[in-house]
């Protein structure tokens, strides 16, 4: 075994260890798994947004070739429990969500019946033979319409279609309003999105000969799925094994409990054979959670020098027909708690309502609430700068927090604390990289020639890795904030690390190995990472809320330190010296100041397992498990700048440059970190310019039902992203990381919107709602010109 060179691996742009198999087509996603005797489930989905179900005729489907079972909701109502959300803000009214609708459907795509057949084609064929009588009811899809008195009511126990009321205040907004030189208001819409993982959802449940059940599922949270399936289907949790193999993207959409996650385990046990369900893309658009879907009314009070005195926000969060997993937490805690963004706004008043509508359930999607929160703060400050005709940078600089303000509780909040950061330095770095002055002059100069260019800025912060556990209960968050890691050294001194985090493409096999290698001081090739199997990994919460490095990485770090602490005891015994005289560096135990020969880690590992010479009180083995519960949360931050050109004749937007400067604390792997920024920024650009879920407001039909209609950007629709970093280590965890996955999708939407509005400022256009599509821009320019004429 080679000895580590002792070079620190945290901070190195190592190439990913997981790439070779994925590049060679040897990845193993759920749909790649084929088991003997495996049957296929297909779902009949509601074609109506809102209807009562009359009779259901399953007879033709039952008689179709290859069909083994056909069921409607009535057969399951007492067999599989309702789908219960995992985050319920206190006081929320929770509508009952049956696994399959029984008497009433509430969105296009809701499960109405299922078929299990020998082949997938046979299952689809038979689904087409099920006959259902519906009586169509009036539907409502828009959050603002749903809270009107005349709106159709979705659930008897949710009067007015509002499940949750939430309020947060700090300082005295009324006073700020009275003292302000001016007050402006704006209404902004955060467009509904489809997360669009390239791998759709899939589930296989397989009974094992020993009576246990294995469930293969592309889950960001395998242990949570084990708990939810166990509780809802009624399977003892210890007899359930959840395996998440390679996952083709998650972005939040794969951290929720869906009907199919419960149906396959139930059916596999009923039929005593493996049952598989795989989601088509069009099915995905009407059954996998959507994101965003907010309307925000904002009022901002300010002085004529651009100083913001107060901010008032009213949020309507559309969560679709039922409360999905996290649904009550998104428009509330995750959004309005962060409404003041990176700015010192002491007087704050925010109110949010969580609204049900006849649409696909809306839940966490990359940033969940923080993109909406940052959009509030950024649209407000940009509107102030534009209203006062002041430089957008100057107004931001006047209101941005200073490094001396940290740790900082915005508006005196008890729930939000920004641990560390230096926003002014981020701004300086971004402006310099972007050449803000030069480009501002260029914009001015070109405007005279009929070329409309604009510069957009957005700053953001948020909090990652919800923790500590004991602080999550009052908010109704029904899980812990810890993560677990087991560092198991074998008798040759190599490490297998069992992590409760769950990569969906982030590259944990590489980044977690880097963290472990620095502590264990063994070559990275001597480290294996195991994730995504509840039978192997002791416990975990998985990957969401940009928590994997801050919480999962820290748990690996702490666990590896415990391994070294024990190894040091064993080494002391082997070297016959006092433990406190032993030091460990470059993969060897030494006794400084003596001529005692160094003892390699591998020899100590062998001793741990043969146990021939262990000090009194030291048990054999070198294998440590940690449940790491952070003391607080890291708050990444950043400043992004975009340079765009808008063609007023066609309404098209060309992004000429995009600079992202992010402070995500310690960088584990700069190459992978930049990759997270690129991907997040492009999802944010997609929200700003291209993507929007459309429903027909009259009948609730989903109009963006496939990738033909829903505009996911291609390579030619997006620019290069210049990603730069600033590192202010987080004091909340031992490695100083803050979280990175959501940064880009939080910063990019306001950044792009501001750039386009800047380009359109000669036309007097002050606000446009996303997505800024060519027709929307073209119409705004035309209307502005008509108004001016």
């Amino acid at each position: 075994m080679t000895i580590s060179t002792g070079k620190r691996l945290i901070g190195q742009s190592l190439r990913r260890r997981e790439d070779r198999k994925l590049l060679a087509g040897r990845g193993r996603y759920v749909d790649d798994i084929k088991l003997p005797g495996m049957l296929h489930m297909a779902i009949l989905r509601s074609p109506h947004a809102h209807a009562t179900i009359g009779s259901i005729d399953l007879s033709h489907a039952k008689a179709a070739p290859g069909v083994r079972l056909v069921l409607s909701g009535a057969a399951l109502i007492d067999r599989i429990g309702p789908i219960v959300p995992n985050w319920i803000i206190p006081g929320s009214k929770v509508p009952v969500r049956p696994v399959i609708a029984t008497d009433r459907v509430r969105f296009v795509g809701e499960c109405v019946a299922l078929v299990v057949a020998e082949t997938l084609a046979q299952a689809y064929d038979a689904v087409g033979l099920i006959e259902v009588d519906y009586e169509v009811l009036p539907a409502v899809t828009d959050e603002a319409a749903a809270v009107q008195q005349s709106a159709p009511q979705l659930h008897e126990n949710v009067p007015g279609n509002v499940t949750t009321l939430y309020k947060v205040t700090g300082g005295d907004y009324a006073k700020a309003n009275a003292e302000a030189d001016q007050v402006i208001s704006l209404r902004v819409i955060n467009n509904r999105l489809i997360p669009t993982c390239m791998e759709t959802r899939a589930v296989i449940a397989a009974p094992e000969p020993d009576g246990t059940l294995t469930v293969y599922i592309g889950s960001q949270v395998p242990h949570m799925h084990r708990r939810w399936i166990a509780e809802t289907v009624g399977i003892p949790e210890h007899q359930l094994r959840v395996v998440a193999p390679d996952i083709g993207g998650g972005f939040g959409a794969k951290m929720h409990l869906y009907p199919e996650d419960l149906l396959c385990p139930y059916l596999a046990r009923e039929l005593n054979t493996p049952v598989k369900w795989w989601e088509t893309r069009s099915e995905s658009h009407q059954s996998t959670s959507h994101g965003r879907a907010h309307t925000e009314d904002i009022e901002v009070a300010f002085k004529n020098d651009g100083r913001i005195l107060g901010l008032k926000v009213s949020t309507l969060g559309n969560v679709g027909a039922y409360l999905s997993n996290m649904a009550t937490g998104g428009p509330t805690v995750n959004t309005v708690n962060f409404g003041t963004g990176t700015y010192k706004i002491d007087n704050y008043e925010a109110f949010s309502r969580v609204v049900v509508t006849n649409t696909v359930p809306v839940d966490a999607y990359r940033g969940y609430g923080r993109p909406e929160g940052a959009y509030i703060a950024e649209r407000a400050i940009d509107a102030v700068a534009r209203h006062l005709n002041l430089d957008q940078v100057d107004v931001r600089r006047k209101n941005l927090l200073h490094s001396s303000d940290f740790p900082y509780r915005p508006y005196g909040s008890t729930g939000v604390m920004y641990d560390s950061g230096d926003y002014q330095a981020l701004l300086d770095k971004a402006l310099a990289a972007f050449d803000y002055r030069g480009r501002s002059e260029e914009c001015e100069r070109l405007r005279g020639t009929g070329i409309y260019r604009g510069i957009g800025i957005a700053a953001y912060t948020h909090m990652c890795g919800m923790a500590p556990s004991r602080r999550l209960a009052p908010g109704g968050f029904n899980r812990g904030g810890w993560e677990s890691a087991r560092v198991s050294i074998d008798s040759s001194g190599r490490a297998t690390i069992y992590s409760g985090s769950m990569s969906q493409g982030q590259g944990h096999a590489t980044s977690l190995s880097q963290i472990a290698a620095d502590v264990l001081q063994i070559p990275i090739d001597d480290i294996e990472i195991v994730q995504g199997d509840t039978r192997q990994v002791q416990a975990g919460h998985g990957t969401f809320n940009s928590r994997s490095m801050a919480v999962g990485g820290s748990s690996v770090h702490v666990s590896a330190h415990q391994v070294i602490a024990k190894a040091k005891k064993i080494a002391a015994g082997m070297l016959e010296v006092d433990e406190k005289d032993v030091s460990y560096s470059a993969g060897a135990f030494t006794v400084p100041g003596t001529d005692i020969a160094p003892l390699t880690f591998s020899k100590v590992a062998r001793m741990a397992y043969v146990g021939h010479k262990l000090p009194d009180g030291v048990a054999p083995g070198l294998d440590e498990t940690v449940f790491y519960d952070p003391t607080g949360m890291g708050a990444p931050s950043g400043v992004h700048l975009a340079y765009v050109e808008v063609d007023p004749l066609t309404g098209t937007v060309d992004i000429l440059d995009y600079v992202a400067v992010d402070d995500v604390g310690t960088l584990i792997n700069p190459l992978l970190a930049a990759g997270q920024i690129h991907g997040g920024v492009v999802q944010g650009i997609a929200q700003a310019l291209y993507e929007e879920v459309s429903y027909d407001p009259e009948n609730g039909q989903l109009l963006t039902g496939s990738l033909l209609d829903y505009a996911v950007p291609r390579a030619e629709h997006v620019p290069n992203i210049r990603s730069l970093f600033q590192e202010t280590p987080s004091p909340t965890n031992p490695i100083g990381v803050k979280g990175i996955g959501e940064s880009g999708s939080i910063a990019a939407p306001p950044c792009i919107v501001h750039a386009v509005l800047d380009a359109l400022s000669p036309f007097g256009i002050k606000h446009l709602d996303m997505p800024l599509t060519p027709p929307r821009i073209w119409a705004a320019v035309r209307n502005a010109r008509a108004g001016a004429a």
Partner: protein
Amino acid sequence: MPVQAAPHEVTIEVNGSRRTVTVEARRLLVHLIREDLGLTGTHVGCDTSQCGACTVEIDGQAVKSCTILAVMADGASITTIEGVAGGGDLDRVQAAFQDHHALQCGFCTPGMVMSVRNLLKENASPSEREIRHGLAGNICRCTGYHNIVRAVASLASKGDVA
């Protein structure tokens, strides 16, 4: 009742091996590749021929294998991602993807690699604009395309022939 289609025999050469399978007339080529031949590196990411995850080479041309029926491929020579490196190490496109961190979840990657090979075959030295345009048939949701474009550009700048 659904019509029980008569089975058809399809013979194709896949990654250098001659294979004969019996399929329903409605079977798509991608399902023949994945289900009948067990070559699961070719992925299905949509149902409207938008995403390109199923891209393979048919008689030297990149084709989305969900756009044709298996029976239409009878007699064709097909290369899938599993055959790209000829059973050896990564080919130069795959190696460039790893070096430039041009993949994250890896789901779009096989189709993307097949399209890049085709792009470089048609234009050995594409500009950035040509690269972006050349990959318009393949959707990636993780990378924002930035590092994919860099990976391809690294091959283009060398002026190699694909």
